[in-house]
Every structure is written in structure tokens, then in C-alpha cells.
């Protein structure tokens, strides 16, 4: 993704243990900086996860076979980032925003390591229309114009990490251009001109905060699954999770939601799950009709696919990549639903890494910071008022596969309640597709669609009673 320049500082590998490498670095490095381990012509992407003295530990996002002590490592001086701009929708990415169809064109059936492709296609042309004039004063997150992207008007915004206010000095006419084109130049407080392109990059593990105010979610997100909408409604900007043992129908419920939910954009992050399940989405979505627009469902969907056999470190990154893109579209005043399947696999990825770092394990060897990390992730959901007054939201729905993680990310899920009931319903072959309905038929009153009331954020929960009164 980044050009290798000759003067980038280089470190040398000092130890290899699974996907973790220990590197001695010459000058300075940054925590979570991206580096590349050089193996012959291959550049293996990695991220710094620990620094001790002159040594840092990097988790490599690829298979490390063949790396030797003494091999060079390049540092990029950047955090793990994604490209945000027109062309994200309809894409199928891996956890590090490499487009999988393009990778397939390049490498065929298999995912060869060390192959990275720009997240946004540099050739595609977009019709830019400016919405500001020279002299206007803007701040981060405000738009300078827009391009049409399928069903949506894609706002081109001042990069979210720019501080202060900027005066527009140059703005291009309406034109057709690629994402790389500079379409405006703005002057910052120090009198320096900064170029604005159609895209910007953003470090995935940081929440985008270029909005005015975060609001209390009040509006219902209709899923069109009756039992959910009636008894367990979720607010736009809220969070929910679907716990269930294997075979309960978590993924099926997610798929139904992704098709039917009353939101503008759906981001599906398949994190450490079966490849076969993603294939269904990949093959079927382009052919399915969006009930609201009549166009292909893929027009409003983005799939992040880091299945269980793909490297574990990019599995950890994949949910962040997903939620960052969700926040980006929220910045355009859209309602985005981000589905993470499954957060347990993600938690396991954290555990794997923690184990390799030889951190003192918590319960069942999950790291002690697991709950903070998960809470931080779910906190990125929310309803916000943007600087231009429009409202956007990110709703996060995660599945949880219990036995392994029940006690950790979801300390309050009474796992033993629903497990036997789902199994007995499945035995009778009534309807295993949607667990809530089977549970209902079996006369068991259990919120499978469980809204984590006291756990994540009390004000994000749109309780059943509140919805009833509305």
C-alpha cells in the first residue's frame, strides 16, 4: 500500500515465534506502527504490539515461514490505516482492506502472502461536484463537494484528523477524476496550503470524532423480523449481540438482518468464521433485490471477509476495518449497520496474540484487557449530529458463540437458558432457521436477541417498553 522509500529506517529480526517477530530497531518506532518484514522480494505486513528497550515485537499479518534472524524490517511511520473514499461500497475486502476479487485476478485460487492491493481502485472515474467556494471556512469532516456512488451522494470531506479551521483557496470545477486527484487546496491556521483528495486514510483503531454531538438513540431500526421488532427492538445507533451455540442460527439471523434492516448501508464483517457462509453472501447479494430501492443489495453492502483460515492478526484487524468504514459513511449523514460475525472469534484472536506475548492470562487465558477492548469497539456505535446538522448513525450487531467466550465479553448472558431450548427445538426439526421463532413456539420466553443493557451503554438501549409507548 505504501511505496517503499530507500531512506525508511530499517530494523532487523531478532526472533520469530509463530506470527510474532522480535525486531531490533535503529531510531524510534511508534506503538502500533505498521512495518514490513522483508523475505526476499516479499514484504510481509506487520504491526508493532510491544516495545521494550531497543526491541519491538510485531505481529505479522501473514504466515511467517522462512523468516530468518537478521532479515530486515521496514517501518512505515504510519498506524494501521484504511483508505476512505468513493468506491468502498460493493467491495469485498480482507481484514486489511485488500480487495479479494482483485487479489484473485492477480494470484488465482489462493491467497499468496505478501500481496497487497490498494483498497480503492485508482483507475475508476468519479464525477465530482463542488459544494463550496473560494474563501469558505471549513473544519475537519465538513464536505467540499460530492460524487455520486451508486445510490448515495458520497461526500468528499476535509480529513478527519486535521485540527483547526481551513480556508478554501482553490476548488476545482465539476469534473471527472480518479480518487488520487487533488480537488481542493485549503489553507490552515499557519498559512500552509493542504491538498484535499477524493480519499483520505484513517487509522482503524481510532474512532472518527469529526461530528458536533453524540445523541441519545431514539429511533427504531426496523429489521422486519417480527419478533425482534416487537419484543427486542434495536435503536439506530445502538448495539446488540446474538449469542448462541453452533447451529443455533446466528449467522442466518445476521444474513436476514443484513438484507431487510431499515438502514442505508450494511457492512458485514465475517471475522474468523467459515468461508462457506461468506460465499453465500458473496454470490447471492449481487442477485438479490434491495426491497427498498429495487436495485441489487450489493449496491449498499460492503463485505469484510477474514475467514478462520486467514491469518489471525488480520482477523483481529478486520472488525476495526469494518467499523471505521461504517463511521466514515455515518459522516455523510447515513445510517449504517455493522454486523460482526463473530466477536468470539475476534476475542480468541486477541487471546492467541496475548498468549504469544506471554502476557499474564486472565480467565480462560483471555487477556485481562479483553473487556475494555470489546467495550471500546461497541462504543464506536452511536447516533451523531454532524457539523452540517444532519444525523448519522452506526449500529453494531455482533454474534457471540458462547462456551468459549460467555464469561468474558458477555458476563451477564445466562448461557444455560437458551442452549437446551434451542437444541430441543432443533431436534424436532420445526424451524431451526430463526431461533427466536422456534423459541417462541416452544413457549420459552427468552431474549435471544439480547440487548446488553447494563453492559455496554445504558443510553444506547432502546428498551421494549420505550418502543411500545412510541
Amino acid at each position, binding site marked *: 500500500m505504501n511505496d517503499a522509500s530507500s531512506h525508511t529506517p530499517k530494523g532487523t*529480526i*531478532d*526472533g*520469530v*515465534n509463530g506470527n510474532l517477530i522480535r525486531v531490533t530497531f535503529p531510531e524510534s518506532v511508534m506503538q502500533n506502527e505498521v512495518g514490513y518484514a522483508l523475505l526476499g522480494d516479499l514484504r510481509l505486513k506487520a504491526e508493532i504490539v510491544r516495545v521494550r528497550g531497543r526491541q519491538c515485537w510485531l505481529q505479522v499479518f501473514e*504466515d*511467517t*515461514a*522462512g*523468516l*530468518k*534472524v*537478521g532479515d530486515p524490517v521496514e517501518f512505515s511511520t504510519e498506524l494501521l490505516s484504511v483508505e476512505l473514499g468513493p468506491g468502498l461500497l460493493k467491495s*469485498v475486502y480482507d481484514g486489511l482492506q485488500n480487495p479479494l*476479487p482483485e*487479489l*484473485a485476478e492477480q*494470484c*488465482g*485460487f*489462493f*491467497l*499468496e*502472502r505478501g500481496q497487497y492491493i490498494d483498497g480503492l481502485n485508482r483507475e475508476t472515474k468519479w464525477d465530482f461536484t463542488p459544494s463550496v467556494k473560494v474563501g469558505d471556512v471549513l473544519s475537519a469532516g465538513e464536505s467540499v463537494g460530492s460524487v455520486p456512488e451508486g445510490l448515495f451522494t458520497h461526500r468528499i470531506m476535509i480529513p478527519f484528523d486535521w485540527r483547526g479551521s481551513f480556508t478554501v483557496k482553490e476548488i476545482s470545477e465539476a469534473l471527472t477524476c480518479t480518487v488520487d486527484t487533488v480537488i481542493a487546496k485549503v489553507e490552515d491556521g499557519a498559512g500552509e496550503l493542504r491538498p484535499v483528495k477524493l480519499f483520505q486514510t484513517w487509522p482503524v483503531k481510532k474512532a472518527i470524532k469529526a461530528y458536533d454531538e453524540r445523541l441519545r438513540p431514539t429511533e427504531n431500526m426496523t429489521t422486519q423480523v417480527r419478533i425482534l421488532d416487537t419484543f427486542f427492538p434495536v435503536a439506530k445507533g445502538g448495539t446488540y449481540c446474538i449469542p448462541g451455540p*453452533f*447451529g443455533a442460527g446466528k449467522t442466518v439471523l445476521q444474513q436476514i438482518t443484513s438484507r431487510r434492516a431499515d438502514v442505508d448501508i450494511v457492512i458485514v464483517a465475517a471475522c*474468523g468464521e*467459515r*468461508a*462457506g457462509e461468506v*460465499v*453465500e453472501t*458473496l*454470490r447471492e447479494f449481487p442477485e438479490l433485490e434491495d426491497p427498498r430501492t429495487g436495485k441489487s443489495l450489493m449496491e449498499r453492502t460492503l463485505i469484510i*471477509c477474514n*475467514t*478462520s*483460515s486467514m491469518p*489471525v492478526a488480520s482477523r483481529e484487524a478486520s472488525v476495526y476495518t469494518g467499523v471505521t468504514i461504517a463511521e466514515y459513511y455515518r459522516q455523510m449523514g447515513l445510517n449504517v449497520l455493522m454486523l460482526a460475525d463473530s466477536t*468470539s*472469534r475476534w476475542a*480468541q*484472536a486477541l*487471546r*492467541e496474540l496475548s*498468549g*504469544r506475548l*506471554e*502476557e499474564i*492470562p486472565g480467565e*480462560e*487465558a*483471555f487477556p485481562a484487557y479483553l473487556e475494555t477492548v470489546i467495550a471500546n469497539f461497541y462504543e464506536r456505535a452511536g447516533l451523531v449530529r454532524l457539523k452540517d446538522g444532519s444525523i448519522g448513525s452506526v449500529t453494531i450487531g455482533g454474534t457471540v458463540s458462547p*462456551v*468459549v467466550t460467555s464469561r468474558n465479553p458477555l458476563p451477564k448472558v445466562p448461557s444455560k437458558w437458551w442452549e437446551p431450548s434451542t*437444541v430441543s427445538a*432443533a*431436534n*424436532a*426439526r420445526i424451524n431451526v432457521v430463526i431461533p427466536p421463532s422456534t423459541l417462541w413456539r416452544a413457549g420459552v420466553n427468552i431474549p435471544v436477541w439480547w440487548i446488553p443493557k447494563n453492559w455496554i451503554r445504558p443510553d444506547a438501549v432502546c428498551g421494549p417498553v420505550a418502543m411500545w409507548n412510541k
Partner: protein
Amino acid sequence: MHTLYHGIENIVGNVLMLRATDVGYGDLAEVTFGEDSSLAQVIQLDGDQVYLQIFSGSRGVPTDATVRFLGHGLQVPFSEDLLGRIFDGSGRPRDGRPELDATPVGVAGPSVNPDQRIIPRKMVRTGIPMIDVFNTLVQSQKLPIFSVAGEPYNPLLARIALQAEVDVIVLGGMGLKYDDYLFFRETLEEAGSLSRTVMYVHTAADPTVECLFVPDLCLAVAEKFALENKEVLVLLTDMTNYADAMKEIAITMEKIPSNRGYPGDLYSQLAARYEKAVDFESAGSITILAATTMPGDDVTHPVPDNTGYITEGQFYLRNGRIEPFGSLSRLKQFVNDKTRADHRKIMDRMIQLYAGFRSTEEKRSMGFRMTEYDRKLVKFGDLFEKRLMDLRVTLHLEDALDACWQILADCFEADECGMPSELIKEFWPTERSEVRSKNP
């Protein structure tokens, strides 16, 4: 290039440590001592300390052994001549025939691009009614057979190896009893199926480390066959032994254990193997069926638990039968609408009636009065178990479907069995089998 190193500093379990430079992670080395030699693999690099996992086990390895690094990772020779051969866990012939002279291919290669996968479309006929009719095995599917130790999972796998309608069978044995290995070999030989089979067998008497390579060898070979347009079925037994071998090495390496001593990457390791199951758009396919014993019949044990989240369903083997409840093929709906018009309906109805039979059984055991319908259900359950569930039964799918109708006809009136009338018109047997008269 291939420098020889003398002198091993540490020997802990099956892991040797020596000082060497210019060694790649995952590379193989040849350790020679006296007249013996063994392969070993680099499993950790720490400065100039190289940790080697020795395949033959460390017993008898002296500190002055000679180590030669080969400069590549684990490889397996591949050619059509593999068919009919039997190897051990490090790829050496076990059948007394010479080593295979063929191009070596790397094992544990990269994973398939999800974008290149296709929706599964073809069933694998096994001739076992509980699989073909009720939980159809689909090409590219990965399914475990959850079983308690002592259940006949190896005979079941052997039968599948004989009967499955595929081009190539790759059989991987991990921690097999020697008797079981002989059983597999003889069964396949007698039936003449050995010629389409490759076996990689690690027996319980072999060094643990070799157990770790069996799935990788099997799947690397399977992948090559699949790319050559073959439909491959990989049978693995027993994955719990494989996980235990991983646990053993992880503990030796002083890795932080996560759950009941298993390493934290158990899920990823299992998934990396199971996800090799694939159906290539323009080539063959790999289907995986793996026996997984559940210690103490506990499905929440880390091995079956993690497996369940990776695989596309599971078969439960209990009391010598494939359990109709709990067993699930998640992919069957992709294929069972293309087999015969009655397949789905009769599959559902039979299981529903069998569920009815089970509750009737409960009722009977508690001494409640049985109704006429209850008696019919009891008869149905008995016939179902005898004619379909018994593991010895071999029937083609169509014959098995007919057998389902025959059971219904033997027990119920046509309007009692809850099947759609157009299907009854087409499939209802004209005669009842003689069972009825024998057993009024």
C-alpha cells in the same frame, strides 16, 4: 549453504535447542546421531537460538548430534503413483515399498481466496442412509464425527472409504491403534479400494510429533489431486489425538495454555486444516470427514467445541448409530432439492415421527397407557432403527428413500403419515412388507 552444526544445548521433551544462524522459521533440519537420523522442524527462533521439534522423538538424542538445515519447510512428494501407497507421519513409506520419486510440494500452503469459492452444488454419495438421506454430505463440506471413544467410528470411516462415490480417498490416521491401522489396510485391500486411496498413518506407538503432520500431508496431497480435477474425500481419524499432540508440544515449549491446557491457537490451527475443504470452480474438490472423539461424551470439551464452530455441521455417533438428533449437515439444502422430489419432505417427516417415537418411548417407560397411534410409532421407531439407522445398512440414496416409504407404509395408513398427497400418489408402496403379519 547447508552448514553442519554439532552440539545441542537443551533437550526438553521433543524440542531441541541449538545455536545456529541463517535458519528460516519453519525450515526442516536433519538430525543425525549414531546410525539414526530424524527430521526436525524449526518452531522458534530467538537470536541465535534455534528450537527444533524432532520428529522421531528425543529419546536417545545425544548432545553431540549433527544437525543439517535443509533450507525448506515440510514437503511431500506428489504424483499419481501415490495412489495405493501408505506412509507414516513424516512421509516415509510404511508399506515396505520404495520411497516415491516425485516432485515435492510444500505442505500447509496459503488459504483459498474466499472470492474464488463457489456455492456447493454436488452431493457425495456414501451409501449410508443416515448420511445420504438425512444429512447429506456435500462436496467441499467439512464434517466431524463426534463420537465417544469405543464407538465404531473407524469401521464407519472405512465403509465410507469403500463406498463413497469420489475419485480419490486420502486417509489420515492420528494416534491410531496398530490394529485399527491394519483394519483399515485390510478392509480397503480386500474391497480393492486401496488403488484409489493414499494413507498417511501415525500410530499410537509412533513419536507424537509425527502426528502433527498427518493432516497437513493429507491435505497438501488432496489439494494437488483436487487441482488436477479429482473429487477428493479426506478422512481423518482422530482429530482429538491431533489436538492432544499440539497440546503436548505447546506445554513443552512453555506456551501459556488457554483452556484445559490446549494452546490458545487451537481454533486457528484446526480451522487452517478444515478450511482446506473447497470446491474449485474449474477443477476438483476436497471434502473432509474427521472423527473427533469427545472425552467423557462432553461436547463442550475444547476440541469438539472449537471444531463445531469451524465445520459445517456434525455427525454424532452414539450407541453404534448416527444420531438423527444433533447431527446436522449445514449444506444439505444446497443439494437435497435436486435428488428426488420426495427427498426433503420424507427426510423431515421421518425425523419428526422418530422424535414422536422417542417421546412415546418415554411415555411407555413411565407406564402410561399407549394409544393405537403410540403403538404405530413404536413400530415405526423399531423399523427405522433396524432398516436405516443400523450402521451395517448400505443403500443407494434412491433405495433408501424407497425404504423410508416402505417403513411408513408398514406402520401407517397413507392419510396418517402427514406426507403431501401428490407425493403419496407417486411414491406410496403398493404392498406392505411381511413384517406386519409377523408382528401384529
